[in-house]
């Protein structure tokens, strides 16, 4: 097991290098360092000397991946790519191009992201599972049919409608919650309710339908049938046998997304003005702060790989028959 994890972690290194290379190449094809400098220095009265100076201060005056001028290993090491990505591997994100400490910013902005993502996930799980259990309980009846139709209908609505509609209805017309904003401390919950409700509602369709199929599959298995044949009540069958067995795929599904919760939700955060990592990334793209973009991409990739690894491990824990090779 340990050996497997170590191997997987080692395997992550070439992937991360690939991710970095992709990010750097894509970013630099789009924005030359001159563009970045101009963007950062503002619109009015920018001189060439200032641009050169800006690039030099941040080390963007080197070649991207191959340095013609350098000697020996310097071909590869005296470049923007080597300079900047080596530090990423040590999780040293350095300064953003506008001079902020990225590591500190991330550690600050992680919490708002989690404050929305975790309740959305937990409440969503609860709502989806209860709803789909109900559907499974009434399977084959008109309740089940209309429930599924409702799910499909809810799936067919663009997420933007949920957000816009929720803000207008709950925030503006009914005066129940602040329309947008965020706060730390004891006031935070007031701002969280609306995004969390919208986050949960918009995912009910897809989530419930998926859980329903999971439950139905379990219900049709032999051991459930025999349990029912033994005269166990339907509730008992559902809660004890079906739910417990379906928990394995549910949990592994949750584990995959656990690390990505840190990255925050892009849409929710920018609509509600929540200072989380999702809006951090979007802001960085808009402001062309390459230091932040590469840090966030790197972090995203690390978390994704971590998610995959966690899934594999959780499979073995949930089902001892699975062996990691």
């Amino acid at each position, binding site marked *: 097991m340990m050996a497997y994890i170590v191997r997987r972690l080692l395997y992550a290194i070439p992937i991360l290098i690939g991710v970095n290379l992709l990010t750097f190449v894509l970013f630099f094809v789009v924005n030359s360092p001159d563009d970045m400098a101009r963007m950062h220095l503002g619109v009015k009265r920018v001189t060439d000397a200032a641009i050169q100076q800006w690039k030099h201060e941040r080390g963007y005056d080197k070649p991207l991946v191959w340095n013609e001028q350098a000697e020996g290993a310097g071909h590869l090491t005296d470049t923007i790519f080597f300079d900047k990505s080596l530090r990423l591997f040590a999780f040293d994100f350095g300064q953003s191009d506008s001079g902020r400490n990225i590591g500190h910013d991330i550690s600050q902005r992680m919490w708002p992201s989690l404050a929305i993502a975790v309740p959305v996930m937990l409440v969503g799980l609860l709502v989806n599972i209860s709803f789909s259990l109900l559907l499974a309980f009434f399977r084959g009846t008109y309740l089940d049919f209309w429930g599924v139709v409702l799910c499909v209908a809810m799936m067919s609505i663009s997420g933007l409608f949920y957000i816009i509609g929720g803000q207008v209805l709950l925030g503006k017309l009914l005066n129940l919650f602040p329309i947008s904003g965020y706060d730390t401390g004891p006031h935070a919950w007031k701002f969280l309710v609306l995004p969390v409700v919208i986050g949960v509602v918009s995912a009910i369709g897809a989530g419930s339908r998926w859980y329903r199929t999971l439950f139905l599959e379990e219900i049709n298995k032999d051991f459930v049938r025999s349990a029912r044949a033994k005269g166990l009540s339907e509730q008992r069958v559902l809660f004890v046998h079906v739910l417990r067995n379906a928990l394995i795929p549910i949990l592994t599904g949750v584990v995959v997304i656990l690390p990505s919760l840190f990255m925050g939700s892009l*849409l929710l955060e920018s609509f509600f003005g929540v200072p989380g990592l999702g809006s951090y*990334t979007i802001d960085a793209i808009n402001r062309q702060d390459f230091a932040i973009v590469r840090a966030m991409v790197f972090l995203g990739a690390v978390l994704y790989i971590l998610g995959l690894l966690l899934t594999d491990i959780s499979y073995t824990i949930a089902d001892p028959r699975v062996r990691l090779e």
Partner: protein
Amino acid sequence: MMGFQPVILATDALIYLLVILALAFAWYTRRHAHLRAPWRRVAASRTAMGALVVIAVYVVIGLLDTLHFRPASGEDAQGHARYASEVQSVLDLLATPLVAHREKTYSAPFATHLYTRETIELPGGGQVRDFPRLKWGGAHLGDPARRAGDIAWRSAAGVALGAAAWLLWMALALRRHPGGWRAWWADPGRAPMRTAAWVWLVVLILAGLVLTLAGVYHILGTDKVGEDVFYQSLKSIRTGLVIGTLTTLVMLPAAILLGIMAGYFRGWVDDVIQYLYTTLSSVPGVLLIAAAVLMMQIYMNNHQDEFNSLTERADLRLLFLCVILGVTSWTSLCRLLRGETLKLRQLEYVQAAQAFGVGHFTTLMRHILPNVMHIVLIVVVLDFSGLVLAEAVLSYINIGVDPNTNSWGNMINSARLELAREPVVWWSLAAAFVFMFVLVLAANLFADVVRDAFDPRLRERS
């Protein structure tokens, strides 16, 4: 008679290719019983048949919007026909009144007056601030007060027209049916067809209403610069369909090839391909899309002369968006195919083929590919609705289709500001919502049936 010059844009060509492929696939399926069977199951579903009618209507509108041409604009000195530089589609031609009836700014559905007050010069001098009369909407009414009666009358005519067309259609369709329509109506095996017929009735009635009403009113209102919202919604259909279908089409060759190669050859080929898709899927998709869209803009800036007309530029951007979305979404299909191929190559007949020294290529083509095609089909159908929805979100962060392209995403995007107006301008958002919802709902319902019919086991993996 005005001449015209047909134009085939990049996405048009791909759509034609898609249609040809679909026809070829249908023809191939008809000739093979084992392939026909799952489709029979689809055809036996009432939901699927109803949804299919809806999808077909969308597809027909989208195809009409795909037939592009340049109308003749006169003759040059040598007597050769000269063509306008602007590209039109058959749909534009059919909807000419909608295009031509441009108002100044917002007007509500069926309105006769603008939605905003303006300073109007009175004939006798002096000014008054009021809602001006629309140039086109309800212009045929002498007195705007007669509007309600006129709408009622026209609606009745529209419903009658639609119903009559439906009756005629049914009569023609059931002409040869043994036992006449009574037998057809009573046949329990025909229940799916009857659902389709009912949906068709609804469609025809709506078409009748559009015919009688859309010419003289803006049935879904007008937008900020006075364009008819109904027309925009119709034009958006093609964009939605293109994103939903071409994205999968462009990603298919790579996904299939790499997926089955990884599963079949294993070893270092598998390693390289797995590395490739893990790396790609590790990069957050939004960032990848944003970067690629910006890259395309740079390309277009450097090759400005090649895209002279607005339509061509917008079309290329649309195609590019499809390619980018394809690149970010091929990995999941690739992974599925790899897994399936790993299983297949253990099967006896593949092992046997290898033992007989059949070439790798032949084995792949003859034994592996046909047996994973159902997965491809299911993924294509399932991805469709997700992609249509994704377009809207991408437009929100300004990395979607060209702002000049009509699309539901662009409509929703501009509607965000309209919602803050008071009184609220709701019709753009509502129109985008309804058009999108109907298509995505139909697609979802249809996809469900297709999935169940082809491979119920795949449910848990999707």
